[in-house]
């Protein structure tokens, strides 16, 4: 065990080693830091019970804890106000039960999304979600960050797919909500409370999802045009009888595309393609490039420093958002691009210096607020985060959210400061 210092002088790490096994407790390195905040140790419990006990132990010692999955979104949220221990779910990585005839799966939180999908594909099923970096992202991680992708237009987001959850709480207990049936209204739906809570209320150790069949056939088209014309086309598609499984608008300086995907039987797809061509009128589609449905992930790549912000707006505002991003980026001499899903969630990427990124974020947030939207800074240098809340201004629900946090985590040990309004 390392020599401890400061607050750590009171910590008896061997006790934790006893809980998780000493080979699963190690010194944290610089690579484990979250937004520059350096934890002391990293523990990898092997069971849900071990994880809960470790969390209870940490609370007893007054330690701040950061739950961690695949490390793909570790920089999301505000910088933590403290972090002593990283609790990794890396060893909780099993698919426990794939009840394919019931179309449900019970999976541990540390299971990587791609591994889960591979297991499900054996029965031609999937978790109908295409989150970021599935090769590394874990179930617990996508749940805690409420990550979703292009399939959302048809299958909903995680809140619509999760049917049960097991969580470890700071008091050292494990608690469950929901179960392995799709339809269930017994008790409060804690699955939804924990989805998107960024690990501030407890640590997700297990989840149960409803599944969908893999599509039989699939075909995607892309249209080019102006953001305005494509926004109109998107609205026309939404008000038609078409049932796309993907519908997104992409824009960057001087170019804009709309992508649409149809899944189903070959005759069904063919009929829908014909209809969308009719609706589009003078806009003529081409077969979509293979990687268009990874655009929400590709937007994270590029030169740095950069800001990747998630925004939520109404579908009628997409062109206006593009115009505002272009205007604000122009004023700050930033490169920009946008990809937005038809449900109203999108990413904007801005590249340039840190000061300009920050100015642009605040300006865009104001503009989006006028449209009833919000903007959250997800990926950016720590310097951009200082002095602002990456989540945006709190709303009238903030006191209630604080009360919920206090009930679940009375000592504020879980990811302190990283969530909305300093929660």
């Amino acid at each position, binding site marked *: 065990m390392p020599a401890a210092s400061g607050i750590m002088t009171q910590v008896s790490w061997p006790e934790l080693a006893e809980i998780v096994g000493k080979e699963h407790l190690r010194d944290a390195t610089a690579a484990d830091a979250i937004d520059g905040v350096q934890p002391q140790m990293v523990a990898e419990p092997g069971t849900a019970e071990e994880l809960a006990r470790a969390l209870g132990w940490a609370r007893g010692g007054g330690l701040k804890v950061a739950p961690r999955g695949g490390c793909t979104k570790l920089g999301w949220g505000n910088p933590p106000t403290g972090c002593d221990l990283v609790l990794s779910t890396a060893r909780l990585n099993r698919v426990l039960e794939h009840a394919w005839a019931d179309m449900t799966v019970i999976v541990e939180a540390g299971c990587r999304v791609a591994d889960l999908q591979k297991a499900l594909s054996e029965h031609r099923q999937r978790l109908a979600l295409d989150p970021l970096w599935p090769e590394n992202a874990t179930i617990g991680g996508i749940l805690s960050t409420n990550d979703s992708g292009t399939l959302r237009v048809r299958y909903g987001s995680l809140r619509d797919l999760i049917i049960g959850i097991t969580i470890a709480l700071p008091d050292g207990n494990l608690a*469950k909500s929901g179960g*392995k049936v799709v339809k269930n209204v017994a008790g409060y739906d804690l699955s*939804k409370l924990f989805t998107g809570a960024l690990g501030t209320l407890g640590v997700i150790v297990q989840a149960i999802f409803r599944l969908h069949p893999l599509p039989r056939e699939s075909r995607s088209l892309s249209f080019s045009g102006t953001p305005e014309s494509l926004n109109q086309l998107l609205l026309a598609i939404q008000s038609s009888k078409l049932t796309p499984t993907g519908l997104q608008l992409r824009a960057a300086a001087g170019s804009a595309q709309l992508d649409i995907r149809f899944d189903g039987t070959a005759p069904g797809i063919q*009929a829908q393609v014909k209809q969308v061509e009719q609706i589009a009128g003078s806009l003529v589609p081409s077969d979509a490039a293979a990687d268009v449905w990874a655009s929400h992930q590709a937007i994270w790549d590029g030169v740095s420093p950069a800001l990747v912000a998630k925004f*939520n*707006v109404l*579908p009628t505002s997409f062109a206006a958002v593009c115009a505002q991003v272009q205007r604000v980026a122009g004023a700050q001499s930033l490169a920009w691009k946008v990809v937005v899903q038809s449900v109203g969630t999108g990413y904007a990427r801005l590249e340039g210096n840190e000061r300009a990124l920050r100015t642009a974020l605040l300006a865009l947030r104001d503009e989006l607020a006028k449209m009833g939207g*919000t903007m959250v800074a997800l990926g950016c240098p720590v310097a951009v985060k200082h002095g602002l809340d990456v989540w945006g201004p709190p709303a*009238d629900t903030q006191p209630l959210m604080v009360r919920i946090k206090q009930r679940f985590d009375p000592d504020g040990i879980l990811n302190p400061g990283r969530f909305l309004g300093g929660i």
Partner: protein
Amino acid sequence: MEASIFDEFRAIVGASGLITETDELRTYECDGLTMFRVVPLAVLLPTSTEQVQAIVRVCHREKIPFVARGSGTGLSGGALPVANGIVLSLARMNRILEVDLPNQRVVVEPGVMNLNVTARVAPDGYFYAPDPSSQQVCSIGGNVAENSGGAHCLKYGFTTTHVLGMEVVLPDGTLIHLGDRTVDRPGYDLPGVFVGSEGTLGIATKVILRIIKRPEVVQVLLAAFNSTNEAGAAVSGIIAAGMLPAAIEMMDNLAIQAAEAAVQANYPNCGGLLLVELDGPAPEVETLMEEVDEVCTKCGAWEIRVAQSDAERARVWTGRKAAFAAVGRLAPAYIVQDGVIPRTALPQVMSEIDRLSSEVGLRVANVFHAGDGNLHPLVLYDDAVPGQPKAAEKLANDILRLCIKAGGSITGEHGVGEEKKMFMAEMYAEPDLETMQLVRCAFDPENLSNPDKVFPRPRLCGEKPGVYEPHPLEVAGVAQRF
């Protein structure tokens, strides 16, 4: 309650919005579950958010418990009044406030009838997806409280999928806005927690709904089997083929007889009837309908019909939607049960129900949302025969235990309410219930909003979270912490 408080209530809602006469109060003594009845001190009928807020503020100040009520169609006693409290009826808050077709949003007050939302947007080709069987009379506020489902939630999801935001009066009278017209508002998913909380976390005074476009084609296939097991095998076959029908419903022979007697739905007299509804693009539905037909035939269906027109389809559904009430023609009284099982457990659970039913000597009709495993056994009895009501209740309860044992749930859509709160302790472990209480205590630390529902025992939230401090009632020895 002191007279001055009645005066205060009257000043808020006017004389026509306050009911205090016992005879009139009896209208509100129960909801759709009539076995529980309690007469409240008063019923208030506010017409605005401001009035609801003002009433709740008085309740909070005076520690008067309140129960919100929509249309009173609930089947678990969720709107059962409390004797020392008031009922807040949202029936007069029944306006559709905003229709935004391009963004597919509708904003309504809680007293709006479910079906009226669809009626309003139907001319433009939209509909509101959750369709509980009571949709002609049940309110959106009640749907929010119960997270109502319906036959089509297999494909389209439940109320929680379609409610994006709400204006809510918290139990201390604070007005807040959960969610929004846009999705993924930063912060905790409070709409996700509030929907389905059965009125225990506050009162929704405005609800933002998502509407969706009507599919191009809707077809219903009706297939007759000799048994529910054969019908169940067909359901598994349909799912295994990778289809997601809009609805799959099953009825057993007794339920079919009831539906026939009541509405002459022209169902074949068979042991297990399956209704499979597919919707979507015409060529897609056509292709898949042929496959459904094949699966059913392979599993032993001896009669298959496809309803093509809207009128035919409506008639097929009439029998199913009328099934609960229709059972009243077969017996003087019946209990509607609502349990959920993993779909694959159906044969085993059905044979257990048969066994229990013949042991007790009471008939059970079964209506089943087969796609999502939601079972509605109807336990028939004669309330004039001594012992039968008790026996029926026990049988209904034993069926719930079968559901729990099969890995299912004690309620799929009717809610826990008053009726099933004791079963919560059988379905969940103590830490699970304790954890749910954390939510309750954050919203309603004084336990005023629909108290004593959902959870098996009243609990105390303590004065503040964190370090344990005895509640004054504990110190006084009049309450105990569990």
